[in-house]
C-alpha cells in the first residue's frame, strides 16, 4: 500500500517511423498508410509485432475519413488483434497526447513495449469541409482553421509590436528546412521572405505561403521500458510529459498566450529539471500550422519573454544553424496530416536526440522539445526527450 506517489518508471523511444506525407496518398488504403509508418518504426526498433504489448492509435475527428472509431476495423491490420488497443482524440494535439498516453503505459509499469501510431488520410474528404461543417443556429462566419486563428494572430502583432514580415521569415525557414526532410509533404524550392510576402492573403493577416498544407500521413513510435531501451541503439529517453486544457471561450481568456500552454510548459520544465529553457533545450519541434505561431509559442513556452518571441525569429536564433533551431523537419507548415502532426513533432524531437535526423540533424542535440496544440489553442501536449538516461 503506497501513501506517497511513486515516480514514473523510465521510458524511451526506441523506434520511429513515418510515411512520405503527400496531398493525396492514393497508392495506399488507410491500413496501408498506417503500416508504412508502423513497419518503419518496428524495423528501427529491431522488433516485430510479437514484441509489442499494446497499440495506441491517435487521430483527429472521424469525419475526415468518414469512419467511426477506425481503430476497430484497423485492429487486425495494425497488429492489435489479441492485444489491448486504445484510441485517443484530443483535437489537433492528438498526436502528442497519444504519445503521452503510450508513454504512460510504460511509465506506470503496466506494459514493457508499446506501439503508437497517429494518422490522417484527409484527402478522402476535404479538410476545410470537415472543419467547417455548419452547425444550426450558429453564424457561418467560420472559414476553417485559418479563419479561426487569423484574428488572434492580428492580436499578437498588435500586442507585441512585431514587424509584419516575421511570419514570412518563419515560413521561408520551415519550407527550406523541409527540403532536407525526405518525408516532408512540401518540397518547395526557392522560398524566400519576399516570395512569401508576395503570396496571396488568405485570412488577413495570414498569407497562402504562411499556411500549412493538407496532407495524408502517419507517424509511429515504439516506446519501451528501461531494460529494453538500455539494450537498444540510441534511445530517446522521455524526460518529462505534460498536458493541459482550458475552455474554448471564457471571459478574458488569452487566446494569444493561453494559460494552459504556459502551465503545461511550467510543469514540463519542472519535471525535466530545466530552469532556463533557452539554454537547456538544444532544439524544438513545435506545432506551427500558421507561421506566426512560432513567435507566439516561443513566448508561451518560456523561450522568450512575452512580446519578444519575434525577436528570436528575426535574429535567426530559430534557424537550422541558429542557437535554438525550431522545426528542423519543416514542421506543420511543410506537412500536416492533422491527426499525426503532433506525433511528428514528438517523433522529430526523438530523432534529434538519437542523432537520426539526417540532413536536418542539429549538431550534438541532447535535449529536445516536442510540442502540440489543438482546438481553439486550448489543448496542449508536450514532452522533453534526451540522449541521457534519467537518474
Amino acid at each position: 500500500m503506497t501513501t506517497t506517489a511513486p515516480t514514473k518508471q523510465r521510458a524511451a523511444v526506441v523506434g520511429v517511423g513515418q510515411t512520405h506525407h503527400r496531398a493525396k496518398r492514393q497508392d495506399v488504403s488507410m491500413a496501408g498508410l498506417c503500416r508504412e509508418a508502423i513497419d518503419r518504426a518496428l524495423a528501427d526498433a529491431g522488433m516485430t509485432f510479437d514484441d509489442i504489448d499494446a497499440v495506441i492509435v491517435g487521430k483527429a475527428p472521424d469525419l475526415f475519413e468518414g469512419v467511426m472509431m477506425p481503430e476497430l476495423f484497423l485492429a487486425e491490420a495494425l497488429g492489435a488483434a489479441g492485444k489491448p488497443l486504445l484510441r485517443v482524440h484530443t483535437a489537433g494535439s492528438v498526436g502528442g497526447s497519444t504519445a503521452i498516453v503510450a508513454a504512460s503505459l510504460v511509465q506506470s509499469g503496466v506494459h514493457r513495449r508499446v506501439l503508437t501510431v497517429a494518422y490522417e488520410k484527409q484527402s478522402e474528404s476535404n479538410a476545410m469541409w470537415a472543419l467547417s461543417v455548419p452547425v444550426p443556429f450558429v453564424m457561418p462566419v467560420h472559414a476553417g482553421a485559418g479563419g479561426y486563428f487569423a484574428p488572434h494572430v492580428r492580436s499578437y502583432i498588435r500586442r507585441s509590436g512585431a514587424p509584419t514580415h516575421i511570419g514570412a521569415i518563419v515560413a521561408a525557414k520551415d519550407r527550406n528546412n523541409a527540403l532536407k526532410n525526405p518525408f516532408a509533404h512540401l518540397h518547395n524550392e526557392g522560398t524566400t521572405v519576399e516570395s512569401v510576402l508576395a503570396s496571396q492573403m488568405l485570412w488577413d493577416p495570414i498569407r497562402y505561403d504562411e499556411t500549412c498544407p493538407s496532407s495524408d500521413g502517419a507517424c509511429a513510435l515504439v516506446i519501451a521500458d528501461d531494460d529494453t531501451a538500455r539494450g537498444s541503439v540510441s534511445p530517446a529517453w522521455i524526460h518529462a510529459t505534460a498536458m493541459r486544457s482550458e475552455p474554448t471561450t471564457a471571459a478574458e481568456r488569452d487566446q494569444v498566450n493561453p494559460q494552459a500552454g504556459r502551465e503545461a510548459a511550467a510543469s514540463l520544465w519542472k519535471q525535466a529539471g530545466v530552469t532556463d529553457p533557452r539554454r537547456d533545450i538544444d532544439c524544438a519541434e513545435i506545432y506551427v500550422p500558421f507561421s506566426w505561431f512560432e513567435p507566439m509559442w516561443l513566448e508561451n513556452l518560456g523561450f522568450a519573454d512575452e512580446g519578444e518571441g519575434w525577436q528570436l525569429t528575426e535574429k535567426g536564433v530559430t534557424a537550422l544553424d541558429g542557437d535554438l533551431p525550431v522545426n528542423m523537419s519543416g514542421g506543420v507548415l511543410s506537412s500536416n496530416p492533422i491527426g499525426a502532426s503532433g506525433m511528428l513533432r514528438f517523433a522529430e524531437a526523438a530523432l534529434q536526440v538519437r542523432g537520426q535526423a539526417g540532413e536536418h540533424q542539429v549538431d550534438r542535440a541532447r535535449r529536445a522539445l516536442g510540442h502540440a496544440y489543438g482546438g481553439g489553442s486550448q489543448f496542449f501536449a508536450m514532452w522533453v526527450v534526451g540522449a541521457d538516461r534519467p537518474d
Partner: protein
Amino acid sequence: MARTLSQPVTVAFDYTRSTGPVVGRFLGGLRDRAVVGARTSTGEVVVPPPEFDPVTHEPTTDFVEVAPSGTVVSWTWTPEPVKGQPFDRPFAWALVQLDGADSPLLHALDVASPHAIETGMRVRVRWAEETVGAITDIACFEPDDDGPPTDAVRGAAPEGEAVTGVVTPVSLDYTYAASPEESSFYSGLAEGRIVGQRCPACGKVYVPPRGACPVDGVPTDEEVELPDRGTVTTFCIVNVPFLGQRIQPPYVSAYVLLDGADIAIQHLIQEVPADEVRMGMRVEAVWRPREEWGTTIENIAHFRPTGEPDADYETYRKHL
C-alpha cells in the same frame, strides 16, 4: 412550447477512398464478376481478403477466386430497413460461406419472408446490372435451387485492370438541438433582443450563454439584455473560398465585444472597406427586416461602424 430549439442537419460527403492493392484486387474482381479471397498463412481462404495476414502481418499476396455460390451459415430478418441498405422493403441479411472459402461474407439475401430461409440453404450472387468495382456490384444473394455445389477453389484469381479507388457516399441525418440557454438566446433574437447570462460565481456575462460557466462549471442563469453595439476586438479578412462556405469572400470576420458582455461574439463587418476595419472600431448591428427574423443570430445581417471614435486599447486588451 418545447424547452429547446432544434433543427435537422445532414452531414454528407462522398468519400474518395484509395484502396491499396488488396482491397483493390477484391473490388476489381467484383467489377469482373469474380469473388476474390485470400489464402492466409494458416491455409484458410478468407473473403473479403484481409489486407495483412492475421498471423505473419505480411501484406496479402496469395489471391484465390472462390465460387459465386455457397451456403448460408447465419441469417436474420430486417423488418424496418434504414436508408442506404440494399433494399427499401423488408429483407434478410446473411453470412454466406462461398464454395472455396473458409469464412463467410456478409450481404443481403433477397427472399420474400423469413420463412423462406434456413441455415444451410444454397444461395448465389446476383450481380448488379453494371459493375464498377464496389461491394454493391454484388446486388445481393438469392436462393440457388439449381444443382449441386459448384467446384470449390477455382485457382489463382485472374487479374483485370487494377481498381485503385472507390467512392463511398456517407450521409447521416441528425436532429440538432441547442441547449436551453442557447435556445432562449435564439428565441430572444427572434424578438430582436440580445440576451446573455451572468455566472453567479464570477459575475461575467456570457453571450451566447452557456450551460455552465466555462471557468466555474456552474450554470449561468441571470439574464442580461445587451445592446446591439460594441467594439471590434480583433478580426481577419477572409479571402479564401472553400467547400460549404455560405458567404462570398472577401469578407471581414470579426470578434465583437458587445457593451456589457465579457466575451465577444463572431460576426461580419460590412459597409466599410475591409482594409479600413480596425481593432477597437465601434460597431452597431444591422438587422434584417423584421419579417425575415427567425431563431438565429443571422437576424443581424452584419455589423457596421457607428462612426464613434475607436475604443481605447485598454478597454479591450484583456479580451484578445
